[in-house]
């Protein structure tokens, strides 16, 4: 079976074609211009992941931009957002500081993407 997908590793947006066997395992990938495209197709067709970016409020209700330190499984995006929505963070924070540990039990921390005083 052939599956077509668009690579999202960079703005090139390569049109990838992946050949899958009967068990859904990726046999080969074509259409990519770099190795990341092949890796993306393999992971996207088996265990898709995304970096989640959102905001979390400080104790005085200032929004702090944050991201997951590593990409999380795609189906966990809403759980991650839901988990950090009601947290209130102490200021100041520095860019890169962990503001929430182990979001939604993914094992992945949430870090601030901007220093806020």
């Amino acid at each position: 079976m052939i599956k077509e997908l668009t690579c999202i590793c960079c703005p090139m947006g390569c049109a990838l074609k992946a050949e899958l066997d009967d068990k859904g395992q990726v046999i080969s990938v074509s259409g990519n211009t770099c190795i990341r495209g092949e890796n993306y197709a393999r992971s996207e067709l088996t265990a898709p992941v995304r970096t989640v970016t959102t905001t979390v409020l400080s104790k005085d209700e200032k929004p702090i931009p944050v991201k997951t330190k590593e990409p999380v499984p795609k189906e966990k995006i809403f759980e991650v957002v839901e988990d950090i929505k009601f947290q209130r963070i102490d200021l100041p924070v520095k860019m890169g500081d962990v503001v929430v540990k182990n979001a939604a039990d993914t094992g992945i921390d949430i870090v601030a993407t901007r220093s806020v005083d």
Partner: protein
Amino acid sequence: MNEYSLLIIGGGPAGMAAAVAAKKAGVDDLLILERDSVLGGILNQCIHNGFGLHTFKEELTGPEYAERYANMVKEQGIPFELDTMVLAVEKVQGSDKKAVTVISAKRGVQTLYAKAVILAMGCRERPRGALNIPGSRPQGVYTAGTAQKLVNLEGAKIGKEVVILGSGDIGLIMARRMTLEGAHVAAVAELMPYSSGLKRNIVQCLDDYGIPLLLSHTVVDIKGREKLEGVYIAKVDENNRPIEGTQEYYPCDTLLLSCGLIPENELTIGAGVEIDPRTNGASVSESLETSVEGVFSCGNVLHVHDLVDFVSEESARAGENAAKYIQSGIDRSSKTLAVNAGNGVRYTVPSRISLANLAPLNHIRFRVTGVYKNVSIVVSSGEKELLRKKSQILVPSEMVDLILKQDKLKDLDNDISVYIEEVGV
């Protein structure tokens, strides 16, 4: 007191990169003027990732990219003034100085003087008034960037049922953002038969959340008196005119407009700088110098970029060239060739190249007029072909960056032309 070698208008990614490069090139007497209360410009509200792959070789969010550059500005001791609005840039009669009139709480209204000025004011969104959408004027219609600012910087909640007109990147990013904030995005309608946003954003912001992208569709009516109640979306024909009988009603409380960006060039025009009608930005030379000597332009105020990485790279060149102008002057004795946009090319930056001022590597940036598959990009001068590059796909949403070596250009006699050659034609 108010005399500088270099004034930089705008403290976003363009202004910061230009300042850092000018300082490195030896200009110590410079100042960044920024109207917002922080450095970073639009990046501060772009909390999503995807920035910096070229510049930092890693994927950063907008605020991270901005903070890295702001840290460079601070580490190098480059002065900047926030909450400072520039009112006018003018040539000073009988001198090579430029007068920059500013207003701020600290200064009041004052005129500063500089040998060189870098215009780095960025761009703004095309508003509803410029789109000719019929219907009433209820609350709930925002440009996508305004909504982004309200949600990401002010922590505001703006709506629960959303329709987006225009598939520009900010609109796509906001489709995902609103979804994560608990809203339902019913559809993104795009007038053109292709998206004006990057592919990765269509995959990550729409496909991931099952949000339909309606190509060749537009909003034909807006309903609601005080508050937005809904919009009618219709299919359009090949001339982008709505097709009778195809309209469908989408109840919604929020309509986001992501219908293009316009370089913000009021100051540029006031300074007497020649504008290129194709980019709505200044017409510039290989040195990114405008038609007014010593006034440079870079970033989104020059032409709207797809990636901030290219803004930084271009702006650093503007900073270096401004330094050269201040320190040793720019050679005006040599031949200047026009760079013309041929078949399939909407514009080129620069629009002219002066042969004495070539760098070892020279950039020509452009966007295509439509979607092209399996074509060649050709750069020629008279009969001479300077560059030929095959491309599988070219889309208007992605800027093309060509690099030409100095020895390819230095002996040319004829104007340069950039065009798309369609295979089999």
